[in-house]
Structure formats: structure tokens, C-alpha cells
């Protein structure tokens, strides 16, 4: 494998040099400053970018069980740049204005298909972005590093993608699972009261990440006792047995690290049937008011908590100017008619805004310059972001967004809370 990737790299360098020779006559400006030491010839435009256009690639699930969120990951960023293109394009740091084209392929959450999509796109696009899924993004991570293709602002909470040592061409967008679990743990530990916590988590990196973050926050807090910790498989159709077992502990807080909407709904229902009504924590992707809490009867519990960094398009925020602009663009340019049921649409919109920030700082039309510019974005309050959160891509080991606020369900939507009641 090493031999293979090395020889491939050599071919890549040779090609890039040849390309540099042929184009150095035209698109070259400001030579001499390059002390970067990148393997590519400085200043020569990378694939997928011209003086007037830049092309982005996405591989994400557009069919299958994860297609709902997957479709959103394309719609948001497409809407953002659709609106920008209609205004004439995006201003880049090298002084040129470019329109942004997006090519999205369906991987159906299948890692092999994701890799095949990447292979198909890599020579035509400037950067890959926004795609959803941990196993799918992992499938072509090595190849992206070898080919030096940016895998930027992808939708996975896997910390691997946010480690610049191991993943030089990657950066996750959404908070890692640990960030979310930790935020709730900190709130709970600071409540000043004694709490017995029951944990039900998905038996994979997703569930384990939430639990790890939660435990790190409550470690040493004498008022928190974890009374039972159970798991379920992502393929399970029912978690009734787990709920029965957890209800028997009489815990007053349920930490439910669950990524599947139907199971989250039936967990809430089952607990009510057992007349067990603890305060309840749900992750950001399974806590939608319309999709989970209403059908699950979330109002029956003393409090349902979640974490967020984006405004929800439904409920109290619907009149917010950010939200109005976003929904209109989503309809007109994102080919997405209804107010979305998944936060991934909002996240993808923010990915668009963050990419634009990076483009604005990018002084050369190269992938190298893009990654440098991207890792320099900090303190950026993207549209739709909640107060108290921001994009900060400068922190090693953290995704572009690592700040979240804890929110509590108020019967219709969510409101940010400062304390656990």
C-alpha cells in the first residue's frame, strides 16, 4: 500500500509539475513569496478551479435510510451558493470573483460507493465537502490524503477528522460527539442537586463518544451517580427491554445517546407507558420537536434537553430574518420545498457560509492555500448560529464548530438554558 500510494503521489507530483509548466505562462502572479514547502508547484491552479468558477464535490446518502439528512447536506450548501451565484459569484482572496458549482453523488451510506464517488469526482472538483456519514467519509480519507484533496467541513462527529496531524486534508464541521455529551454533563454536574443517571447508548463510536464526553464532565462530581448503562444495536427495531430495565433503576435523568429517530420516539413512549418520567437528554440529530418530541410525547417529561448550535427553522425562530432568508433560498436554489425536518440542512447552509469565508482569505487558487485559509477561520458567527456558538477552525483536535449550547424543550421548540432545573 505504501509503495502504491508513494508511486501514485509521484505521478501526482509529476502531473502537477507538467501542469504548472504549461499554465505558468498565464495564471501566475506574485511569485517568490512561496515558502510553503508543499509538494505542488506554488501558484499553479489546482484542478476544479478556473478564473471564473470553482467546483465542489459531495458524496452523501441520497437514497436509503439516511437519505433524509443526506439530502439536506446537499440542499443547504447548494442553496447558499445558488444565492451567491445569482448575485454574481463569490469574492476570492486572489481578487477574482468565481461562481460555485456543486456536484453531488449518492453513496447510499455505503462506504464502497462513497470511495467510488470520490474517485469519480477527485479530478474534476477543487474540494470535497459537506458529505454526511462516518463510515463513508472514513472510506476515502486515506485516498484524499494521498491525493491531497481537501475533505473539508464534512458532517461527521468522528474526532479523527479533526486531528490535523493524522488528517492534514480533513476538517469535520459539526461538533464531535464528545462535545455534545460533555455540554450536558457540565450542566447536570453544576445543578447542585443529587442525580441518578441511566444511560442508553448506541453500540458504536457514536454512542460511545457521547457517553465518553458525558462521563468526562461528571467525573468527580459527587452529586452524579450513574446507576445503569445499557446499549443497543443500530439494527434493533425495539429498545423496550432496555427501557424496562432502566426504568427499574428509578433514575431521575436519562442520557439517551441514540441516532435513530424511530427508536428515540419509541423510547419516550415506552418510558411513559412504564410511568417512568426522568429528565431526558437526546443528541442534536434526534431531538427535532416535530420529528421526535411531538410523536414521542416529550412534554410529559419534566425536561427534555438537547444541544444545538443552529437556529431551528420551525417554532419561535421562524420569524428570525436569518431563518426567513435561509428558507427562501432553500426553496429557490436548494430544490428543497418543505421546512426541513433535519438540522443537517441548516448545518449545510453554514458550511456554505464558512467555505465562503475561507475562499475570501485564499490568496492562491490551490488546494493548499484553501486548507490554510480554512484553518484560519475563527470567531465566525455564521448565519443561523445560536448566540454563544461560532465557527473556530483554528483549534487542533476540534471540528470547525465545537461550541454548543444546551437547550430545553418548551412544548413547541427549544430555548437555551443556563441551568438544569
Amino acid at each position, binding site marked *: 500500500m505504501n509503495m502504491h500510494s508513494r508511486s501514485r503521489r509521484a505521478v501526482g507530483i509529476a502531473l502537477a509539475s507538467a501542469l504548472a509548466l504549461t499554465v505558468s505562462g498565464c495564471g501566475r502572479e506574485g511569485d517568490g513569496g512561496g515558502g510553503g514547502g508543499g509538494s505542488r508547484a506554488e501558484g499553479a491552479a489546482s484542478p476544479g478551479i478556473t478564473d471564473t468558477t470553482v467546483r465542489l464535490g459531495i458524496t452523501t446518502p441520497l*437514497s*436509503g*435510510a*439516511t*437519505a*433524509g439528512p443526506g*439530502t439536506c447536506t446537499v440542499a443547504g450548501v447548494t442553496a447558499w451558493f445558488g444565492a451567491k451565484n445569482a448575485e454574481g459569484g463569490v469574492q476570492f482572496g486572489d481578487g477574482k470573483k468565481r461562481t460555485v458549482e456543486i456536484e453531488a453523488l449518492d453513496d447510499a451510506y455505503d462506504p464502497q460507493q462513497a470511495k467510488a464517488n470520490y474517485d469519480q469526482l477527485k479530478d474534476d472538483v477543487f474540494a470535497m465537502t459537506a458529505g454526511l456519514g462516518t463510515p463513508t467519509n472514513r472510506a476515502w480519507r486515506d485516498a484524499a490524503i494521498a491525493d491531497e484533496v481537501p475533505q473539508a467541513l464534512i458532517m461527521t462527529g468522528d474526532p479523527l477528522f479533526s486531528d490535523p496531524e493524522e488528517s492534514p486534508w480533513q476538517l469535520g464541521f459539526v461538533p464531535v460527539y464528545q462535545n455534545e455529551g460533555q455540554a450536558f454533563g457540565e450542566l447536570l454536574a453544576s445543578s447542585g442537586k443529587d442525580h441518578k443517571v441511566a444511560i442508553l447508548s448506541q*453500540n458504536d463510536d457514536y454512542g460511545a463518544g457521547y457517553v465518553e464526553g458525558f462521563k468526562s464532565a461528571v467525573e468527580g462530581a459527587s452529586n452524579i451517580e450513574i446507576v445503569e448503562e*445499557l*446499549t*443497543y*444495536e443500530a*439494527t*434493533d*427495531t*425495539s429498545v*423496550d*427491554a*432496555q427501557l*424496562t*430495565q432502566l426504568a*427499574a433503576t428509578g433514575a431521575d435523568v436519562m442520557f439517551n445517546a441514540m441516532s435513530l*429517530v*424511530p427508536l428515540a*420516539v*419509541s423510547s419516550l*413512549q415506552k418510558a*411513559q*407507558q*412504564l*410511568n417512568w418520567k426522568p429528565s431526558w437528554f437526546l443528541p442534536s440529530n434526534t431531538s427535532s420537536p416535530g*420529528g421526535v418530541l411531538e*410523536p414521542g*410525547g416529550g412534554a410529559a417529561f419534566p425536561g427534555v434537553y438537547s444541544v444545538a448550535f443552529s437556529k431551528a427553522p420551525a417554532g419561535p425562530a421562524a420569524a428570525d430574518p436569518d431563518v426567513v432568508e435561509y428558507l427562501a433560498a432553500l426553496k429557490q436554489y436548494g430544490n428543497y420545498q418543505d421546512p426541513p*425536518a*433535519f438540522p443537517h440542512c441548516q448545518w449545510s447552509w453554514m458550511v456554505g457560509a464558512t467555505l465562503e469565508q475561507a475562499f475570501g482569505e485564499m490568496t492562491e487558487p490551490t488546494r493548499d492555500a484553501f486548507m490554510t485559509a480554512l484553518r484560519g477561520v475563527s470567531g465566525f458567527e455564521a448565519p443561523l448560529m445560536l448566540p454563544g456558538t461560532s465557527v473556530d477552525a483554528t483549534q487542533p483536535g476540534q471540528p470547525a464548530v465545537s461550541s454548543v449550547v444546551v437547550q430545553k424543550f418548551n412544548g413547541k421548540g427549544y430555548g437555551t438554558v443556563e441551568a438544569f432545573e
Partner: protein
Amino acid sequence: MGTFVQLVVDGLSAGSVYAAIALAIVLVHSATGLINFAQGGMAVLSVYIAWWLTTRGVPLIVALLVSIVFSIAFGALVERYLMRRFERGDPDTAVVVTIGLLTLITGVAGWLWTYNNQQFPSLFSLDTVSFLGVSVSQRSLGTTAVIIVVMAALQGLFLGTKLGLALRAVANNPESAAFSGLPVGRLLMVGWGLAAALGAVAGALVAPQLTLTPGMLDNALVYALAAVILGGLTSPVGVVVAAWLIGVLENLAAVYVPFIGYDLKVAVPFILIFVVLLVRPQGLFGRKTVVRV
């Protein structure tokens, strides 16, 4: 003790979900000799039709009836214009065609109605009934009751009526059945239509809990197939008992057998199948297939 009984009751209600789909598989198998992997997909399509009607203001019960009628027609048409071309050939080919059909229907449903989770209204309320310190929802009770009624009706159909006998004859040996004057083609259509209708009922029963998505029954189908093999392909009573057994044993093993836990419980039904089939290859309740030579 309270937890133990609750786990058994939970297992029975999960088992009823598997049983609903397993019964439809048994019906098609008894009527055509095939295992229809698209059974779940066809059921989901019917539930989508019912759901679509309810969003247009049609009362739930009417919507369900319409979807059942649609299912009968759809099942019969699938048999007549798709499956018939493969029925005379290698049975493996026909089974693969049903897998293709499953993929196709799932894709079409996703294209028409998106992959978002839709809330399907339930015929039964979620209010609970408590007895002996155990709470069980009316929905679980209702689902189980419907399953038992359907099971009894199917058992009666196949063992007690001329139509059932004719269906079985066609499945068993289409050529001989044709020679003895049975309208084989029409009987096959009836078998597929009935199975699709049963699938629609099963889908409507479980959709409120699983929430309606194109892939709603994919995981349940695996358990249903396990129940079908365990209970015996020919016995409606057998598959229902097997489905309940799977649901209950899975729960109990997860809680009371420490090394299994919730991580390995999915393997329980399959270990069970392995053991049972070693002893009784025809399944717990199945009849031995006798081939005259």
C-alpha cells in the same frame, strides 16, 4: 419479578411485529412455493398509500381499507405480469427477482414520499393497561389480538377450505394441479393478492411504532424470516409462536445472560434456528416435505 414479567410482555409485543410479516411470508410460500423478500416492501407501499390518504383528510379506517384493496390488486398484478415469467424456471431466480422488487419499491417510495420519517396514526391508543405490576399499551394488545385473529383465519383457510387446498396444490405441484382442472394462474394471483393484503395489515399495525420510512420493515424482515424458518414454512401457528419465542428469548437473554447482553442478543434467534433445525429440519411446527419418487 416485576421486571421479568415486563420483559416477557415486551418480548411478546416485539414478537407480534415480527409475526405479522412472517404470516404474510408463509401465505405467499404456501400459495406459490416461493419466499417473497419484497413482502415487507410491498407492505410499506400499502402503508404509504394509507398514510397519503390520511394526510388528505380521509379517515384512518377508510384509508386502511382502500390500501388493502389496492394491495390485493397490486399483489395480483405483480404475480401476473412479473413473477409469472419466473415461476416455471429456477426458484432461485424468482427469489432474486423478489429481492430486486424490494429494492425497486423502496426506491420508488423514497422518490415519491422522501426518506423522512412520517408519523402514521395508530388504530389503537398508547394508553397503558396495568395488571400484576406490568404495564402494556393498548397498541401492543391490539396488535397481538389482530395477529392472533389473522393467524387463526390463515390456519382455517389452508386446512379447512377448498380454496386453501387448491392454493396448496398449486404451490406443491403446479403441473398436476393444472391437469386436475385447477385454474393455476388465477390461484397464484389470489395467493399473491391475499398475501399483499395481509402485508398491508401488518404494515399498518407496526408503522405507528417504527415510524413510516421506505426501509421501515427491512430489519423486521430479518426477524420475520427467522420466525418463518424456526416455526416451519407451512404453519401459521408455528411462525407466530416462533416469533413470540424469538422476541421473549432475545429480551431475557440480553438481561439475564451477562455475556450476551444487548450486544449479542441479535444472535439469539439465529443460534436458536441452528439448534432447532439440527433436530427438526422442518421447523418446530412444520410438516415434512414428502417427495414421491
